């Protein structure tokens, strides 16, 4: 022990590990020479190489935040029913690669028997990409894992089937920074009140000029409060974005009732058909109602159902709305369109209808 202390270990700066030792042998053999793929059933992909080799992938949902027992269970399944090679998708689904088609059904059965839903491929609702929340983040307004658990319980049948018009990618984020990313549907914290400042702490905890600079609407200025150097907010200017809270925790943006949830639709990463898009506001001010968030679930379900019923095959959420028009969307989902839906930020005018095109 003393020797170790005398000679501290310096890191071996290995960088990004080479994945080759962990790839399925057929991935190595057919690297870059795949020919086509198809899906025999939801949750299963068959990739065929130019060499004629076939590689089957079985995709299953996970809870992302996994205990070692869950991971080892997934490994046991991979050793007993698959070839021992796995990967994780961008949305935290696990994928098992197998060379032998006869392994596919027993593998699915074993995953299901252990509570891992098989699906998330093609025109399904895949796992929600989400953030850390109350479990680990230092600025969270909600707990993404809990929101996601409720939503995926509700949408489980749409994960294991491929019955949507096109893929549905949902995201959740625990603050307006939106680490969960863009989505066909995004469930994000939306603050509704300016931060409450603890003036006793600001001078010691916050680098005041940096906090002033962080505000997107220049609503923060240095001030002496009760003889102490602190910060004050022009509450008329404040847009309640929470940007000042990470660099200055005494500017508490979260409140029991003022931290709300907003739902956005029509974000799209892919370039397929239309160009990538950002998601757009649909409804704000939903309560942060842990542990089940029923008001959030109800709105998401309405949107999913309307899209499922009305969109054409291969239309993503945003493309569907583009076709039917926003007034029809708000009618079909029985949600209100308000002045808050009209953008006021930089570039807002480009989001307006600058034509005589009107939907009735």
């Amino acid at each position: 022990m003393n020797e170790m202390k005398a000679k501290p270990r310096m890191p071996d700066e290995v960088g990004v590990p080479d994945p080759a030792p962990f790839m399925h042998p057929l991935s190595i053999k057919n690297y870059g020479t795949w020919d086509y793929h198809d899906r025999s059933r939801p949750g299963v992909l068959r990739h065929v190489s130019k060499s004629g080799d076939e590689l089957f992938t079985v995709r299953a949902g996970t809870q992302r935040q996994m205990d070692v027992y869950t991971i080892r269970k997934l490994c046991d399944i991979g050793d007993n029913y698959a070839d021992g090679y796995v990967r994780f998708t961008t949305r935290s689904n696990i994928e098992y690669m197998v060379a032998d088609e006869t392994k596919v059904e027993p593998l699915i059965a074993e995953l299901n028997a252990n509570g891992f839903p098989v699906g998330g491929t093609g025109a399904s609702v895949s796992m929600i990409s989400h953030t850390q929340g109350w479990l680990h983040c230092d600025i969270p307004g909600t707990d993404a894992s809990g929101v996601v658990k409720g939503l995926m319980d509700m949408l489980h049948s749409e994960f294991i089937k491929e019955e949507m018009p096109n893929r549905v990618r949902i995201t959740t984020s625990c603050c307006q920074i939106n680490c969960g990313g863009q989505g066909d549907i995004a469930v994000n914290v939306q603050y509704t009140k300016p931060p409450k400042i603890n003036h006793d702490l600001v001078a010691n905890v916050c680098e005041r000029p940096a906090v002033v600079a962080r505000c997107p609407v220049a609503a923060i200025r240095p001030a002496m409060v009760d003889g102490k150097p602190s910060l004050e907010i022009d509450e008329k200017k404040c847009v309640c974005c929470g940007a000042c809270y990470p660099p200055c925790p005494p500017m508490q943006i979260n409140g029991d009732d003022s931290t709300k949830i907003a739902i956005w639709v029509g974000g799209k990463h892919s370039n397929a058909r239309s160009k990538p898009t950002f998601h757009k506001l649909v409804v704000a001010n939903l309560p942060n109602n842990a542990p089940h968030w029923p008001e959030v679930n109800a709105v998401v379900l309405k949107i999913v159902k309307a899209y499922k019923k009305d969109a054409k095959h291969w239309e993503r959420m945003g493309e569907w709305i583009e076709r039917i028009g926003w007034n029809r969307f708000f009618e079909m989902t029985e949600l209100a369109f308000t002045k808050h839906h009209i953008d006021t930020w930089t570039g807002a005018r480009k989001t307006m209808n600058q034509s005589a095109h009107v939907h009735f």
Partner: protein
Amino acid sequence: MKDGDNVNDGDQNGVNPTPHLDQLEDGPWPSFVTGLKRLRDTQGAQYAPMMNDLLGQLNHSYENRRGYWKGGTLSVLGYGGGIIPRFSEVSEQFPESKEFHTLRVMPPAGNHYTTDLLRQLCDIWERHGSGLIAFHGQSGDIMFQGCTSENAQIAFDELNEIGFDLGGAGPALRTAMSCVGHARCEQSCFDGVKAHRGIINRLLDEMHRPSMPYKFKFKFSGCGNDCVNAIHRADFAVIGTWRDDIKINQEKVKEHIAEKGRKYTIDTVVSMCPTRAISLHDDDTMEIDNKSCVRCMHCINVMTKALSPGDDRGASIMIGGKRSLKVGDLMGTMIKPFIKLETEEDFEALEDFAEEVMEFFADNALEHERIGECIDRIGVPAFLEAMDIPADPNMVNHPRTSSYVRTDDFDEESAKYFERKAEEAGMMVGDD
């Protein structure tokens, strides 16, 4: 996923009640709460007391709808970033999870693992951490969540010994992501693993010793489907594409139509082409006007057997994607419409360019400014000039509509354009 009754519930002193979290154990989706409880209930495990208090604090958050973590400073010897320190603000009530830090660790490119490797990661985190791991965080890291300040170094050393390295945090190069790519996808237009490892491993110093104006992210998608969300989320997005014609197997086109129907094929393929570049002949063969095609991937996604990307493959580079803070959302915009990515020299050129862009960012961005904001501030033409990249119509939706620009060197710029065009034409002739 439910593991039956929890042995500790109620009948042993010291188990924090979790009435709110208990409600998240039912339902068909795997429950993270059940997993956390499994760790809490592992008799004799070093992490069990920590997980008991972690669950207590989390339940406390559910009750009061507040987070109770604060940041701090923690790193391992030799590095300045890669660990997310978390100290509890309610450690008097929940002392065992007073320190609950996360190690961000870079996964193998493309997120490939063997079960053996996953077990090694579990074993290390069972010995020194909480037993809780996320595959993966939104930046693309394996998130080893929950360890004490003392154990952070020990856990890192063991992870490092089996070939893993810390990822990025703070104003630094961040952990990158790449799609499954060549390993299992016929649509992949370049070797994402090679590009990903080449760039990150060359610039690694910028990850481990944060000294940039703000974060900088690379993401690599093999085609325009952009499965790692690079255009929205990366400062530097590399998106696979091709220059020659889409490959058509007319027999497979006919099979597709026989299976799916002619009307369905017209509705879902022909009519959905964003540039109206596809037509279907009366004999069910397909024609594509490749000069109009924008490589969006839609028709190839629908007709996976009949259509595929061309052979002259490479990538586009888009720069400046980010989320709202603070000028508003920005997507990456086209900066290099096409780079070839085949030879060692091609990949080296990409790495050189990545390094140049990082240098530009380090030299020109203001504190807490992403490169997209920096470019907006100075204008894309100034960035192109700094990078010595010629203007290209693929960079814009349309030419400018504002007349407020000084154009007295327009003729010189035009001459450069025509000279470049002539050179390209010459090269094409030479290649033949």
